[in-house]
C-alpha cells in the first residue's frame, strides 16, 4: 500500500493551502513582534528630527501590532477550517462513531425484544391456566 495516497487535486491543494497559511501567519507574528522590539530602541542619531522619528516609529508600531492581530485572527480561521475538514474527512473516527452508535442501537433493540419475549412467555403461561379454569367451569 502506497504511503502517500493520491488525493483529488482540490483536497491536495486545500491541504497545501492550509500549510502555507500556517507558515505565513506564524512568520508574520514573529517578524512583526521582532520589528516592534527593534523599533522600541531609541536611536541617538536620526536622519530626521526626533519628533518625526518618534511619529514614524509610533505609526510603524501601530501597523505591526495590527499585523500581529490579523495573523492571530487568520490562525483562528485556519483552526476553524481544520475542524470542519476534520469532521467531514476524518473517516477513521467517523467509522468508529457510526459503529459505536449501531452497536448501542442494536443492543437496545435486543434488550427490548428479549423483554417482550419473556413477557409473552409469562402471559402464555397465565393464559393457559385461565383457559383451563374457564373451560372446566359452567360458564364456557
Amino acid at each position, binding site marked *: 500500500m502506497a504511503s502517500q495516497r493520491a488525493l483529488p487535486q482540490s483536497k491536495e491543494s486545500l491541504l497545501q493551502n492550509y500549510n502555507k497559511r500556517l507558515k505565513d501567519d506564524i512568520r508574520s507574528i514573529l517578524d512583526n513582534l521582532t520589528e516592534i522590539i527593534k523599533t522600541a530602541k531609541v536611536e541617538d542619531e536620526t536622519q530626521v528630527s526626533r519628533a518625526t522619528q518618534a511619529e514614524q516609529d509610533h505609526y510603524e508600531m501601530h501597523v505591526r501590532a495590527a499585523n500581529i492581530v490579523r495573523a*492571530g485572527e487568520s490562525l483562528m480561521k485556519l483552526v476553524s477550517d481544520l475542524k470542519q475538514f476534520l469532521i467531514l474527512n476524518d473517516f477513521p473516527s467517523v467509522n468508529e462513531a457510526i459503529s459505536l452508535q449501531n452497536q448501542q442501537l442494536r443492543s437496545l433493540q435486543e434488550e427490548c425484544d428479549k423483554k417482550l419475549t419473556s413477557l409473552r412467555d409469562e402471559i402464555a403461561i397465565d393464559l393457559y391456566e385461565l383457559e383451563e379454569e374457564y373451560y372446566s367451569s359452567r360458564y364456557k
Partner: protein
Amino acid sequence: MANDRLRALEEVENQIATILQYAGNVVLELSKDKHNASFLDRQLSQVTGSVNRVATELSSQIRYLTQVATGQPHEGSTYSARKDCQMALNRAEYTRVKLGELGRTCEVMLDPQL
C-alpha cells in the same frame, strides 16, 4: 478519537489567544519608561514557546489529514440500526397499550360499579 483531535484544536485556539496576550504584555512593558528586563524575557520566551507549540500541533493535524482524507464523501449511516430500534420501541409501546386495555377490561369485569 475525533473528540481528542477537536479538543486539541480548541486548545490551539486558546494558545493563539495567549500568544496575542503575551505579545500585548511585551508592547505594554516596552511603552514604560523603565522596563523590567526579566519580565520582558519571560513574556518573550512564552510567546515563542506558544508559537512553536501552535505550529507543531497544527502541522501534525494537517499531516494526519493528508494521510486519512480521501476526497470522497462518507456514505456510512446508522439508519438501519436506528429503524430496527425504533420498531422495537414501537412494539414495546403497542404491548404497553394493549396490556393497559386488558387491565382496564379486567377491572371493569371485577367491579361493575366502575
